[in-house]
């Protein structure tokens, strides 16, 4: 702080009548003169005028002032003006304080003049307390990197970039879409001259692409911004197109074969586009882009990650053999899993959250069935290019899947199966009516066809024996083939079966004698299978006893339904507590009733016995199906096991306690689903391959997949469609035989079902595009890149989005086909649009004979907090009306408007022209629009406000002039850059009049419709203005930064490091005596100063010793100024 005695000058500004109309300025100045240390005070008409500033300068010299206070308007605009005034008078500019008498007093206390004056006195007194303690500060000079990043390549961003680059500054132009051009590129004609939009935009788009000082970063998004004015560091994500843009020649071949269609946002959803697309033919760059959002929920939730969306999409296209290839890329069991899978994919299917999930399992069964009917292609034996022999023990689903993948990798694989036929529980557990044996046999023989050797009837004694025979690695998949005991008295009675033994006997063709009354204990698939088999073996009454309720039953729901159709009774919430026998033969079951308590570890509600609720059920047989266990065979000896006797393996690599020995399936997990066993086989194959090649087993595993979040799946345009029903044979015909119950989907049904797929991930990775791309530009394995840009300035020109009224169904939009938005009409009149420039009604493709425009849809509308004018709607409707009239002069056109606003030059002429062409303008907003059944024309109900007449005219097409809204990511962008958004969500300028393209942050400029609705000339002007702002900042090469930053007194600091934890910029470095604030990084927020427990940190210009007296004055003086 300076040592000389403070001599303060106080200048009270009238601001014409803005302040003086409420506050008695003379009184304020007189009062100031009475305050200690005030050497001079005066009231001025306009302090900021030349005269006013001259007066201040003279007073500084004349009265030897060393502090200045101006009591005028907000310092947010005029502080720099007066600081410069001080500098010109030879005073340090930071010996200045400003009192806000206008925004904070005269304009907000207009009706309380006396109190307003009183408040003004107090604010001045507060300022004097602060001013006398101010100290001179020197501004820091930073170097400015002479480069600019322009974010958003619409017409505003393009204009800014070209001006900057032409002026000699390196410019990066970052655009999140695959092409530059923004909204203007989608327009047909631009008012008021009605010249062709792309004809005037196209040349400057291509100039941007060719400019030597412009680096174009299309399909890129800003991730983070660090640094400060003059030296920003931007991290930009260059999203991958999965196509090399330099190799792609734009030939459209990929687009032709791509099977995925999605509503085209570039056509405002009038038509679809493919997952591989180019927004429009003039796109810059002209490369195609594959729109891939990640892994869809179905594929993500499938343990084997079968590409469900991929094969569904190809079914839609009737490309069945390619679709089947997709299934077989992941698993060998298209037909088997198409029948017995518990389909976790369907539980997560996005369609399920809309109407009903897609019938994914039945679709891949369809593919397998279709191939069986039409003849399969011969399996090509895979060349074994690897020498290392691999042994798989157990030919169940896990073993076969592992062998399948290893064979595809070129390994010689031998599968050892103890039983006389392969298939494991698929063969010996699951009944034939669910899984015909020939389907299973054929799919296993395909695996053999690849070159896998399967040796049946060959139990393996020990791992050592395999090693001795030269097997390099072993996969154990011996399953959990023993039924769990119930542990209830009488379980050994004659007539009591355990499910796996029972099913095994039946599936082996042995005869099983059952009585008339059979009870099944359990609620899983083995229980339901046993029940249905019992029925088929002739049991009269079959009762399934389950301890929880139906929703907790783990069996596949459709299986339970079919069982009931076949006459199986469910006895829920009951459990056996004993089997009663006479002479060792079962007579009845003693049961107890249960109720459900709190959920247990499995998430299902725990069953609790109800006391004294025992009852007896007379039965001839019981089949117990309450679980399966691993059987302790000799091969498992010496391997570590878990407390449940399953094998203990590394959860990621599936390696057992013995190196080179891997295990998976039920022998590890205990009884689970077939698909999980298959998935384990696949993972084990990956491990074995790594093991053999000597690669680290776990590096990069498990693979991280990006699930497409539900919110990213567009369901707004979906229509309800029922899920395909699987046809079954009549329940009466089933009882006595084991014929397959589900007969499979018909081709038509399957295709229709596949069409229900939402294409959640868009690109389904069917890889058809790769095959047709002649220059080999496509690579699905490409990943996003991150680039770092060092720039001195940033211009944001991120634009707007047109309001989509489908959210509110306003005026029937979204429900009535012939109600469209003006953005959609623009595409219809556009020669490059979906109708090649012919205006056609969406319902019948006919040119409309009458058209109504409805203005201000979503604009000037308080109900949706959009009570601002869209600025372009009136001109646009007038333009579109004249365009229709030019093409179809007999069309009747009415514009329903609250007002027609045609501001500025040229627009009134457009209005007159439309009127002269016969366009009728009706003052009044329609109250409602009704669709006429049959013609689908629209009755517009409105009141003509000039005549008071009620109108109910029918039009063939209605066009909504919809609002302009801030882009969805505006808020996010504002946060990344630490700039502000205004009431409606647009970016906010530093001053609405004087600094329209500056943000509050030095070095960050704003341009175009990200600031609010504007037309093209205005957007271009803003772009050029922002470029000029950036240039004037960069041209001197140096920038003075505010000297407001934190300082640490190391003699007080005790190194607690709290400041470092709190600093948003990591501006604090060092320890002990070395601890300091890096001023060029510190932004001056002061959070550290307020937090320091030692009070070792202070803020320059906002020091505690400057603020505390000001605060005390603010608190104290109120009402104490009288006399």
């Amino acid at each position, binding site marked *: 702080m300076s040592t000389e005695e403070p001599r303060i000058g106080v200048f009270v500004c009238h601001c014409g009548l803005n302040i003086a109309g409420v506050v008695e300025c003379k009184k304020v100045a007189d009062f100031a003169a009475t305050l200690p240390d005030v050497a001079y005070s005066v009231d001025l008409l306009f302090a900021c005028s030349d005269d006013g500033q001259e007066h201040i300068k003279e007073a500084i010299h004349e009265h030897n002032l060393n502090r200045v206070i101006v009591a005028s308007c*907000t310092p947010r605009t005029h502080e720099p003006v007066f600081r410069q005034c001080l500098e010109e008078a030879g005073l340090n500019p930071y010996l200045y304080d400003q009192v806000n008498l206008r925004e904070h007093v005269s304009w907000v206390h207009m009706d309380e003049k006396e109190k307003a004056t*009183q408040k003004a006195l107090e604010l001045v007194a*507060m300022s004097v307390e602060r001013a006398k303690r101010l100290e001179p500060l020197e501004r820091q000079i930073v170097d400015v990197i002479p480069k600019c990043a322009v974010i958003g390549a619409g017409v505003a961003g393009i204009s800014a970039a070209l001006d900057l680059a032409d002026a000699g500054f390196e410019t990066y132009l970052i655009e999140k879409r695959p092409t530059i051009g923004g909204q203007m590129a989608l327009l047909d004609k631009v008012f008021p001259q009605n010249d062709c939009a792309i004809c005037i935009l196209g040349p400057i788009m291509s100039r941007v692409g060719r400019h030597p000082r412009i680096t174009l970063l299309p399909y890129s998004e800003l991730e983070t911004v660090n640094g400060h004015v003059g030296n920003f560091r931007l991290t930009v994500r260059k999203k991958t197109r999965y196509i090399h843009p330099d190799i792609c020649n734009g030939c459209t071949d990929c687009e032709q074969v791509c099977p995925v269609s999605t509503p085209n946002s570039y056509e405002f959803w009038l038509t679809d586009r493919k997952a591989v697309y180019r927004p429009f033919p003039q796109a810059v760059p002209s490369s195609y882009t594959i729109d891939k959002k990640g892994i869809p929920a179905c594929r993500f939730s499938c343990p084997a990650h079968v590409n469900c969306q991929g094969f569904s999409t190809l079914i839609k296209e009737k490309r069945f053999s390619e679709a089947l290839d997709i299934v077989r890329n992941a698993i060998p069991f298209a037909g088997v899993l198409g029948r017995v899978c518990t389909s976790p994919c369907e539980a997560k299917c996005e369609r399920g959250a809309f109407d009903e999930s897609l019938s994914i399992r039945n679709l891949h069964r369809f593919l397998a069935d279709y191939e069986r009917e039409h003849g399969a292609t011969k399996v090509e034996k895979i060349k074994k290019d690897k020498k290392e022999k691999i042994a798989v023990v157990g030919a169940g689903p896990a073993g076969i899947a592992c062998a399948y993948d290893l064979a595809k990798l070129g390994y010689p694989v031998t599968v050892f199966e103890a039983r006389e036929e392969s298939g494991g529980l698929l063969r010996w557990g699951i009944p034939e009516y669910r899984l015909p044996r020939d389907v299973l046999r054929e799919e296993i023989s395909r695996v053999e066809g690849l070159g896998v050797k399967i040796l049946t009837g060959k139990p393996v004694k020990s791992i050592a024996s395999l090693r001795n025979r030269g097997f390099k690695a072993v996969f154990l998949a011996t399953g959990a083939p023993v039924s769990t005991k119930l542990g209830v008295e009488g379980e050994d009675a004659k007539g009591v079966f355990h499910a796996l033994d029972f099913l095994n006997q039946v599936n082996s063709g042995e005869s099983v004698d059952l009585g008339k009354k059979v009870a099944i204990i359990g609620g899983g698939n083995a229980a339901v299978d046993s029940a249905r088999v019992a029925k088929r073996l002739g049991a009269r009454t079959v009762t399934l006893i389950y301890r929880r309720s139906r929703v907790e039953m783990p069996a596949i729901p459709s299986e339970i339904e079919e069982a009931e159709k076949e006459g199986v009774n469910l006895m829920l919430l009951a459990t056996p507590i004993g089997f009663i026998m006479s002479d060792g033969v079962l007579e009845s079951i003693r049961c107890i009733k249960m109720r459900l308590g709190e959920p247990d570890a499995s998430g299902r509600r725990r069953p609790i016995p109800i006391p004294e609720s025992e009852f007896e059920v007379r039965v001839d047989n019981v089949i117990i199906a309450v679980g399966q266990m691993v059987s302790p065979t000799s091969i498992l000896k010496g391997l570590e096991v878990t407390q449940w006797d399953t094998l203990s393996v590394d959860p990621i690599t599936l390696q057992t306690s013995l190196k080179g020995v891997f295990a998976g399936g039920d022998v590890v997990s205990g009884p689970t689903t077939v698909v999980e066993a298959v998935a384990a086989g696949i993972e084990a194959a990956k491990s074995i391959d790594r093991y053999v090649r000597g690669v680290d087993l776990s590096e990069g595993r498990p693979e991280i997949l990006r699930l497409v979040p539900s919110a990213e799946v567009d369901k707004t345009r979906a229509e309800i469609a029922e899920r395909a029903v699987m046809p079954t044979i009549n329940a009466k015909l089933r009882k006595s035989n084991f014929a397959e119950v589900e007969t499979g989907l018909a081709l038509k049904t399957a295709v229709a079902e596949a069409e229900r797929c939402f294409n959640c991930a868009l690109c389904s990775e069917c890889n058809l595009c790769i095959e047709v791309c002649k220059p080999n530009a496509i690579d699905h394995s490409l990943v996003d890149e991150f680039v770092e840009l060092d720039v001195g300035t940033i211009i944001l020109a991120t634009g707007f989005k047109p309001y989509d009224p489908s959210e509110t169904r306003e005026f029937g939009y979204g429900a009535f086909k012939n109600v469209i938005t003006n953005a959609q009409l623009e595409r219809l009149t556009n020669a490059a649009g979906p109708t090649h420039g012919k205006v056609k009604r969406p319902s019948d493709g006919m040119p409309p004979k009458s058209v109504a425009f409805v203005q201000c849809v979503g604009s000037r509308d308080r109900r949706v907090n959009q009570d601002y004018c869209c600025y372009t709607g009136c001109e646009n409707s007038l333009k579109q009306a004249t365009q229709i009239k030019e093409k179809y002069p007999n069309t009747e056109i009415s514009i329903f408007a609250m007002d027609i606003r045609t501001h500025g030059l040229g627009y009134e002429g457009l209005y007159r022209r439309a009127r002269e062409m016969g366009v009728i303008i009706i003052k009044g907003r329609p109250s409602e629009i009704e669709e006429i059944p049959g013609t689908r024309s629209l009755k517009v109900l409105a009141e003509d406000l000039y005549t008071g007449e009620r109108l109910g005219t029918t039009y063939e097409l209605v066009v909504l002039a919809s609002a302009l809204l801030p882009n969805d990511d505006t808020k996010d962008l504002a946060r990344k850059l630490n700039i502000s958004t205004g009431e409606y969500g647009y970016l906010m300028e530093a001053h609405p009049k004087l600094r329209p393209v500056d943000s509050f942050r030095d070095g960050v400029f704003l341009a175009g419709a990200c600031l609010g609705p504007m037309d093209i000339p205005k957007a271009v002007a803003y772009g050029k203005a922002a470029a000029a702002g950036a240039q004037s900042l960069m041209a001197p090469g140096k920038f003075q930064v505010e000297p407001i930053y934190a300082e640490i007194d190391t003699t007080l600091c005790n190194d607690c490091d709290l400041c470092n934890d709190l600093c948003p910029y990591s501006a604090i470095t060092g320890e002990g005596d070395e601890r300091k604030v890096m001023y060029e990084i510190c932004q001056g*927020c002061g959070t550290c100063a*307020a937090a320091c427990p030692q009070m070792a940190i202070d803020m320059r210009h906002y020091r*505690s010793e400057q603020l505390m007296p000001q605060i005390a004055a603010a*608190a104290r003086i109120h009402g104490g100024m009288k006399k």
Partner: protein
Amino acid sequence: MSGKRFEPSIVAFTCNWCSYGGADLAGISRIQYPPNSKVIRLMCSGRVDPLMTLEAFKNGADGVIISGCHIGDCHYSTGNYRTEVRFMALRSAMDVIGLNPERLRLLWASASEGQQWADTMREMAEQVRELGPSPLKGGSKK
């Protein structure tokens, strides 16, 4: 009090970016509110040391408002998180020393929320008027 209405003294701390701008916007929009509050402008609400709030009360303020950018919108990214933590701590401390915590208020106001600013100034003036003069105010016992 001789029938004259009690006019509370309120000290309002604002950040420079959001809340000061909000207060300016109330002025530009000519939204009227009572003249009881006086603004201390800081760069960030995170600069408001609890001692500053106590200094205001110690010197007779009847109410204090701390105002900053909305959470997530802070010009300095995270400064206002700290503001919120301190605000909670201050209120409990006030409770302990027998100062009604309602005398301290936290306002998130953006530069576009002139109306919210004015509304809060009005509400606070009325609320503090109802609470009466601060017990810490010297000589206010009448």
